[in-house]
């Protein structure tokens, strides 16, 4: 395996470069996935049947907390990758750890939000609107959950194996994933919550 020291660690081998390009293409597919979910949501959001409308169940406070937490986590993982580029392993692990904790906070608030909907009589089966809402939010939440475990495994590997071309590559790709989830959340925040509350 040839290591090219002119490149950052995560790009330093051929396989690493392939992994990063492959992951970008995967994110392209993810964009299509969420675009389809948004299409379904926009088509169905007014079709509430006998259930509640968006304005009746959306509340700004938990959503603002979720947004704040997730945007901050995107910032901290950026710091983590920056630390990784400087070769500062401990700083990187710390920032990745903070990122995952913020991710957990996000998930906690989201679960609370879903419980509230449930108690207000907006379940998955209530109407086309609630089905589409919970599938879209749920898919994003499932991505964050998966990301939490994935990130945890990467932290463990960095701690045990140090910053090698392999671990750096994994950490960098994970950061792309995490930023992507943030971008999706911005769309959810703007076009599902804010638009729904108007």
């Amino acid at each position, binding site marked *: 395996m040839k290591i090219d020291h002119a490149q950052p660690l995560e790009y330093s081998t051929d396989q690493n*470069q*392939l992994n990063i390009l*492959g992951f970008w*293409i995967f994110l392209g597919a993810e964009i299509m996935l969420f675009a*389809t979910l948004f299409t379904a949501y926009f088509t169905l959001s007014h*079709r509430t049947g006998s259930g509640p409308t968006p304005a009746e169940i959306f509340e700004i406070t938990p959503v603002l907390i979720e947004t704040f937490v997730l945007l901050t986590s995107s910032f901290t993982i950026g710091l983590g990758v920056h630390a990784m580029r400087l070769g500062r392993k401990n700083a990187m692990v710390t920032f990745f750890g903070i990122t995952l904790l913020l991710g957990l906070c996000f998930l906690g608030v989201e679960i609370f939000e879903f419980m509230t909907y449930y108690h207000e009589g907006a379940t998955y*089966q209530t109407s*086309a609107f609630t089905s*589409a809402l919970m599938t879209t939010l749920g898919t994003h939440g499932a991505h964050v959950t998966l990301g939490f475990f994935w990130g945890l495994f990467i932290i463990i590997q960095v701690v045990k194996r140090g910053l090698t071309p*392999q671990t750096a590559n994994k950490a960098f790709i994970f950061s792309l994933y995490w930023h992507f989830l943030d971008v999706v959340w911005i769309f959810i925040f703007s076009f599902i919550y804010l638009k729904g509350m108007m």
Partner: protein
Amino acid sequence: MEFFQRFAIPHPSPAIYASMVAIALVSIGIVVGLTYFKKWGYLWREWLTTVDHKKIGIMYLLSALLMLFRGGADAIMMRAQLATPEAKLLDAQHYNEIFTTHGVVMILFMAMPFIFAFMNLIVPLQIGARDVAFPRLNALSFWLFFVGAMLFNISFVIGGSPDAGWTSYFPLAGNDFSTSVGTNYYMLAIQISGIGSLMTGINFCTTILKMRAPGMTLMKMPMFTWSAFIANVIVVFAFPVLTVALIMGTADRLFGANFFTTSNGGMDMLWANFFWVWGHPEVYILILPAFGLYSEIISTFSGRNLYGYKSMVWSMILISLLSFLVWTHHFFTMGQGALTNSIFSITTMAIAVPTGVKIFNWLFTMWKGKIRFTTPMLYSVGFIPLFTIGGVTGVMLAMSAADYQYHNTMFLVAHFHNTIIPGVVFAMLAGLTYYWPKFFGFMLNEKIGKTTFWFIAVGFVLAFFPMYITGLDGQARRMYTYSESTGFGPLNMVSFFGGALMAIAFLLIVYNIWYSFKNSPRDIGSDPWDARSLEWATHTPVPEYNFARLPQISSSQAFWDSKKNGHVLFKGEIEDIHMPNNSGVPFVMSCIFFVAGFSFVFALWVPAVIALIGVFVCMTLRSFEQDHGYHIHAKEVKETEAKYGEVLNNEDRSRATSRV
């Protein structure tokens, strides 16, 4: 006892009981055979755990042939039922199940693996790479496809086949109208194999973008690689739509969601739209690689460079863009209004333009060429007029006002078979014959091959052209019978006869493989067709590392130019070659996916959750694994090369081939 009742067949018939016995006997036979001949270890080491793109390609090929048999059996049963008015061979329910599984199997489990087989076999060789970008992911893609196909195929003996058509339109596919688990099978089996397809798309896009041999710019790629690249870009952008649609359909059926229901605000047309936003690009995922194969074959057997290389590439790019803008033409009659229909009419007709460009390019490639009418060339030459007829009837269907007459008639059935069979199936059989010697070391018999072509071509014309007439006369598709007074009887009998000829052609293909295996000579050299692109520049059969030294490319017909124009392909010393390790994880993980899918079909939540956890355990193990592959040492490579008995030096090689 009550627990097991859910696995019973809702509409049993003697044929299904016979199939159950046959499946049981074949399974026992395979297990006993493997044990008796002590082949379990061989099977595990060489096939189940392989990450070699050539072996994966061969497994795709065998699966595709197997599924061709399954889908073909469905087809011949339908034709037999319709051969005479008011026949009693199949009842309405059984007929519904068979046209549904015929469509799904032929598109998703026959045509898709067939093109993936050729992509796996050919693309890395054509771009001068050692393997694909992610060999293990490639194995996972294959096994997910395979278990998806198996899950779909057990439906007719456990729990009942899907019966809502291959399009599974809601509300018909909803719980109210499809009460058996059949449609659950549809949703989950396609989901599992679809994940595999998506990963193949990512894998090949990356491979083609990053792993081309030195000197091979995008515009010097062989045409099949170009077509594979564009098809995989479409895969990446189309399959997620299907994923979401299937998740929603599954949620409606299993969790009481209201996406496509007719109450609580659900919208059944949303399914139709999502299905075809994936479904129409899917058609081009199949046809573009077929076009790529025709380009290779026509250029080889005309002895000429492909005419209009750049226009070939740009027409494919244009087709891929347009393919996402035409989906509404599948349901012109379902209430969009005149303006929407007109727009989609125009985009649909526009696709005929780049397709026409390609037809003329192939014709000009043959113009003044020294044409050799081998079996692959016969298929390619047969393809041009037959496919053009299919394309022209497509333009007829594209006229939305006129479509009210054609919609849901046999005219439509005739049209899409007229594009898919000469377009895709001919290409697959041509490719099979053309590339067979590269991977198996012997040629298929030309005489039997040509006979097969005539059976399949004549059979195709007899089977499908009468449907244009009965369709215009009003014979509806998906009707299990018709009365004698309609007068459809004689033409349907002709169709049945044509179908029988195609069935004979299939048997001839199998016979040809067996016959050639017994009788064909093995000393065919590495370039039996006098071909033009890079896959023929390495040995036959291909060594596991593909190329001992990576080729240096300076034209789109690299191998031809090295033979005739003195370009030197292989320079420098042989070095150690890095190879990926085999792994059992893709196979095991896919088996767990199978268990998960099966449990979801029957709403068995405990095993379903356990299996999903198993999937995540596999992913965790993969995350922590440190696998750097291994090296084949230069000395070993040289020994292998010497064993092939061919000269290592390229100058000598060009002299050797110029003797031909």
